[in-house]
Each structure stands twice: as structure tokens, then as C-alpha cells.
């Protein structure tokens, strides 16, 4: 695993600047939570790291070298919507195989697919299933297995639980924590749900209008927020408290 560094990254679409000189580090083996409101550029930041959004200025570095944005990326991304992140016409096994590096022989490939499926707590026998036969939570695990298949150094998780049922969300979050422990994954974990981020992240960064407004250890940012916007987020995180 490696360190992913965003160094004064700006992204502009036409005249509309989405990210303003964002600097952020995802340290080796740690999870950084990224929170912020809709449209503030969270997804854009992640997409820039894998070459899906154009970086206007600044640099995105992996262990000090620019991240390749062509071919198989050493940084892999898991998307929000489990219903759109798997090709409906490809089996689970085919989707995962596509991300495997090199051209493994048939046997090897099948073993690797089975290993990855077991890793994300799925029955390896499901390799032949089409996404339509899987529930949202199962699809999200397949997407995670596909990302892991590419032997990434860093994983970007963009709202991976927000489309999932609460009962499944818990299982996926537990899985993410297990994987970090077992594989030492470095991860950028994007979510709008502070309670979810709190559960998985070591560090927390708050993005507001394309700028990082606060950044620090998760416990510190949540326990002693210094920026007004962070306080605002924390205040709106708990509508339930008013009732109970």
C-alpha cells in the first residue's frame, strides 16, 4: 500500500471551478473520510485521481510520483450506485476477470475470482451469476472485489453505502473495516453520512464549495470542530436527536 497525495489540485469545467487548490493526503494503510454537501466536489476529487475528471492544475501523486491515468490504474474506485456499476450483460466472474492484471490462464483466473469473492464474503459459486440476480449489497461487494482484483495501492470509495439498506450497510461497513485490518488498505472514503464516516475513518476532511475547510484526526474533527461549516454539518447530522 502507498500514500496518495493531492497537491493543490484544481478542476475546472469551462468557467466553473469545481475544486480550488485542494491538498489532501491519504496516508499508507489509513482511511480518510471525506464529507461535504452535494455538488461540493467530493466525487470530482476522487474521479480526478483515476483520470475521470480533468485536472486543470496541481498534481495527484502516488508515493511521490504522478498517478497514471491510462491503462490499469494503481488507484481503484468503487462507485455509489450498485445498480449502475456492474455491466448487466456480464457475469460477476467476467467483471472481476476484466480487472485482473496480466493474462492469467483459465484455471488461475478462476482461482483468483474465487479468492476475491471469498474475500468480500460472497459465495464463489456466484461467479456465474449476472448482476440482475444479486441484491444491492451483493453487487457492491462484487464491485469491491473488482477493485481489489486490479491489485490497487489505494481504494477510493465514493458513497458506497448510501444506496444500500441499513441492514446491508452495516455488513458492508464491517467488511471495509475487516479489509483495512487484513490487507492494510489505504482508502479515501467519501460519504455524506457523518455517522458512517465516523465508523470507518481515521482522518476526516471536510470539503465545502471546492475547498477543504477542515482536516484532522476523525475524533478531533467530530469532537472539537473548528470550522463553522463543520459545526453546521454536525448539527444537521442528527435530526433524530430532536425526537428521542
Amino acid at each position, binding site marked *: 500500500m502507498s500514500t496518495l497525495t493531492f497537491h493543490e489540485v484544481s478542476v475546472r469545467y469551462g468557467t466553473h471551478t469545481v475544486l480550488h487548490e485542494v491538498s489532501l493526503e491519504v496516508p499508507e494503510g489509513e482511511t480518510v473520510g471525506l464529507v461535504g454537501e452535494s*455538488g461540493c466536489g467530493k466525487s470530482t476529487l476522487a474521479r480526478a485521481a*483515476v483520470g475521470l475528471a480533468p485536472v486543470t492544475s496541481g498534481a495527484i501523486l502516488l508515493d511521490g510520483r504522478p498517478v497514471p491515468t491510462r491503462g490499469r490504474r494503481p488507484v481503484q474506485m468503487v462507485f*455509489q450506485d450498485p445498480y449502475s456499476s456492474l455491466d448487466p450483460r456480464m457475469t460477476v466472474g467476467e467483471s472481476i476477470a476484466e480487472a485482473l492484471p496480466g493474462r492469467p490462464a483459465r484455471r488461475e483466473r478462476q482461482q483468483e475470482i474465487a479468492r476475491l469473492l471469498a474475500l468480500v464474503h460472497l459465495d464463489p459459486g456466484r461467479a456465474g451469476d449476472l448482476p440482475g440476480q444479486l441484491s444491492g449489497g451483493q453487487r457492491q461487494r462484487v464491485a469491491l472485489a473488482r477493485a481489489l482484483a486490479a491489485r490497487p495501492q489505494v481504494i477510493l470509495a465514493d458513497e458506497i453505502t448510501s444506496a444500500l439498506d441499513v441492514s446491508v450497510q452495516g455488513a458492508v461497513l464491517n467488511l471495509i473495516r475487516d479489509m483495512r485490518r487484513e490487507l492494510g488498505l489505504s482508502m479515501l472514503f467519501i460519504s*455524506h453520512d457523518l455517522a458512517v464516516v465516523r465508523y470507518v475513518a481515521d482522518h476526516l476532511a471536510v470539503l465545502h464549495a471546492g475547498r477543504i475547510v477542515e482536516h484532522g484526526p476523525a475524533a478531533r474533527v467530530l469532537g472539537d470542530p473548528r470550522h463553522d461549516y463543520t459545526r453546521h454539518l454536525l448539527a444537521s*447530522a442528527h435530526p*433524530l436527536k430532536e425526537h428521542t
Partner: protein
Amino acid sequence: MRALRRPVGLVGVALLALVLFAAAFGPVLWGDRAAAVDTADLLAGPSAEHWIGTDNLGRDLFARVLVAARLSILLALAATAIGMVLGFLLGAAPMLLGRRLGRLITAAVNVLVAFPGLLLVLFFAVVFGVGARGAALAVGLAGAPAFARLCHTLIAGVSERDYVAAARIAGVGRVRMLWRHVLPNIAEPVIVYATMTAGAALLTFAGLSFLGLGVQAPDYDWGKLMQDGLNGIYVHPLAALGPGIAVVLAGLAFNLTGEAFAAGPRRTHVLPPAGPPSPATTPAATTVLSADDLRVTIPGPNGPIHAVRGVSLTVGDGEAVGVVGESGSGKSVTALAVAGLLEPPVRVEAGHLAVAGEDLLAPGASRRLGTALAVVFQDPMTSFNPAHRVGPQLAEVSRFHQGMGRRAAFARAVDRLRAVRIGDPARRARQYPFEFSGGMRQRAMIGMGLMGEPRLIVADEPTTALDVTVQRQVLDLLADVRRDTGAALLLISHDVSVVTDVCDRVLVMYAGRVVEELPAKDLRALARHPYTRALVAAVPDMETDLDRPLAVIPGLPVDPVEAPAGCAFAPRCPLADDHCRAVPPPLLDGVACHKAGEAQ
């Protein structure tokens, strides 16, 4: 094959089979007869021997029409294939060649599409020269721009999908991407369109041959036969009309077939079950939605899926009712049934089902409902057409249902976009869906639901992808609308905290049934059903213990194909006993559990 169940589709397919049969076997069966010269019987009229007469060498015209089927069809198919391949490549240009070059090509295609097709054909026919090959190229090339535009739209839709992004990140090349991910996912509509185009190509071809630009003697297609017959049109009209009728029939065959397969889903009306509805369930005047014993059955490969198994619910005017439950518990199907959006072969049955005073059991109800019912769905990407700008798509609703003018409707669209807190709505209205972030698309979708003045808003997971602050704004917006118009809300969500925050009353669904119904404020603390309790416990909050795994509900939801005899939650319930497994608990006093409220 749904298309075959409609008379139009049946006629089309039957005609097409006949035409293809003639094309395949015509020359074999009637070739000799069509070539037999009979100098004693030149330019004869119709007779028992020669049904539509003979030509200037005394050859039987009817046989010649049948034989000409092969060349006519082959040429039409070849031209369609040329148009399709070329169109696909042009349409895929943005993906293959990168953004800048792709945009140039797309612009060129748009200009060409606006050109009259016939002019293009004639232009190319002259360029490529007289003859069958030139004509095929001409018709093919002229058809390419329309194909290109279709492919472009479809490909844009597929490229939006995350699986394409994921494949790119995994290092999949552009060509393989097109082949493995794009083509299979756009094939269906392209083939339907190609079928219809083949019919048009056939007509164009006949026209070219008729003008002498197409097939040349001694070969002949239908157009050539028409040209030959033209000289004697006043004497023997059938000599020219015969091949003309063949062209029309074959063209119709392709068109009807394509059309039948392209036909979109239709709204259904609900089937009342046998027996009179119980009078006790007649809705009170103040309810905007009332359903009694709603059942939805979906045919599946392993037997019918009982997605909704007897749900009764009422929503009062201006009331907000939430529905929570795991995926597959029947929340969305319930919403779709209420909105009249389920199509056969799905079966919807109810003792009673009425929305905004319209009895959905009566035919035509969903049309009369108009904008009284607004529906907001979970996946805004599939609800928006990727090829059209957002504003006009919203405006469409008002133009269609409220008969507004183009300008007024657009102004309202901008206003509604502003109402759903989209900054700079006038500029945003002119953007395409892909230029919106996920959250903005969802808000625009809600804006579309608010184009009319709804009495009931059915919102299926409307805020799933939104962060807390915007979720708040959107929910406040829904609250505003409800206050202003008295609209009621049926809010479906897997997010327990959203539902508790917004709704007055909550229904908890499990395996197609309501297992608990209670005031929203009691959900956290006063739930009595073991499932409701487990659901609430699974939501992490700011006090969750970070050193322990999150609580999850053990096991999997029941397979709706095998609706269990007793309580559906029994396999996952810590309190389950034999009585639970044998006898389904009825919904009594707001909870369906034999051991309601017992400690676990």
C-alpha cells in the same frame, strides 16, 4: 415475446416471414418461369396463366415480382447494414477518438440529420454512379447520420453508467470497451430501429431503380420492374402496380415488426378480485390514497413472485406516511402499483384502490389522474433522457398535462429548478443531465414531480444519494409543497432516520406485508416488532461503539417465490418458535407478531 401478443406485431411478423420466404426461395421456385421468353404473348394483360400479365419479352410478371424479392431485400439489407455500421462508428466517435474530435463529428452529424434524406440519397447516387452497388452505398450513406445520432444518444446513456468508468479504471481499452460493454447494452434498440429503417431503405431503393439510378438490366428489382411497367401504365396498370404493391407490403412488414418491438410499456389498470369489495373499506372523504388488500404478483422463472401480499394503507389529505423495509420487501412495488405504473404480465389485485378520488379499479383512471399524482423515483439517470436538456424535459410535463405553451412551461421549469434549490436555474435548465452532479439530478427529478400541483406525491428513495444538508433542504421543500398545496406524501426509504424525520406515521414492511405501523416518533423507542427493532439498531449513529462490529440482521430476507406459511421473519427472529413458523401473525393493533413487545 410481448410484441407477438399485439395484432399489429403478429401481422408484421407474418408478413415479414412471407417476404423473407420469397427472398430466400423465389429464384429457386419461380426462376425458370420468370426467365421463360414467350414471343407469342408479348405485353399481355392479366390472365389466368399470367396473373398480372407479361413483359415486352413475354415473361410472366408475377413470377418476376416474386424472383425480384431476393435482390430487392438483399439490397435494402445491405444498405441498412452500411448505414448501421457507419452510423455506429460515427456515433461512437466521441468515445473512440476523444472528446474534441468526437464533438466535431457529432456536430457534423447533427447538420446532416437536418438535411432532407432524399436529397442526400440522390447526391450520393450521382457521386457513386449508376448501378446496384452505387445505389446501395448511396442509400446506406444517406441513412448513416440518423443511425449515428441514435447510436450517439444510446452510447451517451451507457457511458454515463459507472460500469464503463470502472472498466476504464481497470485499464480496459476503448475498442474492447465498445465491444464488450457498449454494444451489448445498446443492441436491442439499434436492431429495432434497423428493422424499421430496412423498410424505408426498400422504398428508397425502389425509387432509385425506378428513376434508372439503381439496378440495371438484365438484373431487376421491384423498382426496375415498376420502371419497365410504366410505359404501359394506361393499358396494363398491374404491370407497374404489381411490383409497387410488393414494395409496400415488404416495407410494411419491416415497419410493423420494428414498431411492435419498439412499443413502450403501457399503464395498466388494477384487476378487482372475485367477489364484491367489503363495504367497510370505502374511503373517507379526507383520504387521498386508500388501498385495501393490495396484492402484486410478478411471474418469474421459478414461479410467481408474491411481491406484495395483502397491504392495506390509507393516506389522509396532507398527511406524510413513510414506508421502510429492506430491499425486496415490496416497498417500490407498492409505490408503482399505487401510481398505476405496473405493466402486464405483472398482476395487481386489490379489494379497493383509489387515489385522489379516482377509483383505480375503473379503466382509464390513471389518465384522468393527470398531475394529481406526482412520482419521484430513486434513479434519476434512468428517468431523464440523456440526450435532452433538463429544462425542456421538465417543461414537457406541463405542456402535456396542463397544455402550457413552450415558453410558459420552460419558465415554470426554471422556477421549479429554483424551488428545488438548484443554483443558477436558468443556466442549469439548458444543461444536459450528465452535467449535473448526482445530487442535483435527484433534485431536478423532484422538480419534475412538482411541475403540476400534485395532491399526492409518491417518492421512492428520493434522497438516497444526497448528503445531510441537501437532504434536509429537499425534505423541507417537500414539506413546503405539502403546506402550500395540501399534497400528501408517501415516502419510501430504506433510511430510517429520514422517514422518522419527515413522516407522521411509518409502515414497516417485510416480505410483502406490513409488519408494524406506528407513529414516526415512536419508531426508535417504542417499536414492538422484532424486525423493526433490529432495523433501528442497525443504523450507526454518532454514539456507535467504534471497537465493535455494527449490528446486522442475521440471515437473508425470504425468497418471495416461497412465501412461508407462518411468520416470514421467523428464520431470522430470535424469538421465533413453532407457533410462529406455522401461523402467520395478523396485523393487530398496529403490529403483526405473536410475541409483540416481548424482550429479546
